[in-house]
């Protein structure tokens, strides 16, 4: 078995998020094989499916800096992305009894293996937060829509944490049940100077090849993927109705 690897970003974070959903939908219809996508995007705030923009984001900071807010189709928290983050997405079909446990318990080992190979000692907290030296360096989110397994995450390599902290609202007080590591984030570069997004990219490809016991092959996005992403971009990800309002009123 082999895993297709796609290194693709469009230059527009809204299109990049539309491409994520296109991957899930096309894999569901067997139009593409199992795929690992690696991508970066420009400054943006990505909201979890059930999150409210006004609760999570300092909207004046976002608009003052021209930073778009985009809703993703997976649950979980709100994140800040910029060119210093390496994002990865894996879409696959597998017959497993407990798909969510499989995604977080088995597939996510690809990320842990990648960081280990770079000399870090990563571990998981709260099921899917990747932590190095007591600080969260990566968050992940999964979905099992359309009969496919989908996992994506973002790794902080050299992101603008000042911007992150001014954009995202952090509760002033934590309830005892909230693990504060969720809000204690760091770039990998803090622990190893000189590391770049390219280093992490190579390690992720090797990490996922090893975690899934598959060979990898590099490909370009197909015309069909780009067309599907274009439709999703036009109808959904470019629209405030999807990005800013809760999806309850939106035909997803």
């Amino acid at each position, binding site marked *: 078995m082999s895993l297709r690897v796609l290194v693709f970003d469009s230059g527009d974070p809204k299109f990049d998020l539309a491409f994520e959903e296109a991957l899930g939908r096309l894999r569901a219809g067997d139009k593409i094989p199992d795929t690992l996508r690696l991508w970066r995007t420009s400054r943006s705030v990505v909201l979890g499916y*059930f999150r*409210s923009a006004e609760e999570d984001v300092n909207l004046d900071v976002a608009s003052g800096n021209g930073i778009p807010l985009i809703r993703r189709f997976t*649950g*979980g928290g*709100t994140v800040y992305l910029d060119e210093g983050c390496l994002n990865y997405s894996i879409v696959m079909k597998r017959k497993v009894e407990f798909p969510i446990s499989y995604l*977080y318990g088995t597939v996510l080992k690809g990320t842990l293996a990648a960081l280990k190979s770079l000399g870090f000692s990563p571990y998981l907290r709260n*099921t*899917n937060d990747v932590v190095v030296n007591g600080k969260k360096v990566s968050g992940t989110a999964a979905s099992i*829509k359309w009969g496919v397994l989908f996992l994506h995450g973002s790794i902080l390599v050299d992101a603008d944490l000042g911007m992150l902290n001014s954009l995202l609202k952090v509760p002033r007080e934590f309830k005892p049940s909230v693990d504060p590591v969720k809000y204690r984030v760091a770039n990998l570069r803090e622990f190893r100077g000189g590391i770049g997004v390219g280093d992490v990219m190579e390690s992720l490809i090797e990490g996922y090849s090893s975690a899934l016991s598959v060979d990898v092959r590099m490909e370009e996005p197909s015309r069909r993927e780009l067309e599907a992403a274009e439709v999703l971009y036009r109808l959904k990800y470019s629209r405030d109705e999807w990005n800013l309002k809760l999806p309850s009123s939106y035909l*997803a």
Partner: protein
Amino acid sequence: MKHHVGEHKAKKGLIRIEFDERDGRAEHVRITGDFFMHPEEAVHELEQKLEGHGIDELESLMDEFFAMRMDIEMPYVNIEDFKLALKNALKE
């Protein structure tokens, strides 16, 4: 009209339920949070299930919803977590 907001932190993710109470009924029911629910759209169906009903019926409607929807998966979150968020909302 009274606005109710309640939160509960489940093992994985915060659940927040809010609604307006008008003449003893829940209106504009909204469920947000950083939890995971698969399929994601089920949360809107739950909102709709509660919409317009008497506030004393909401808990049993939640039970009914999850009992009927055997396809829903909520990793590290259970029905009791949603009910606790609701109870916290009703306390206010």
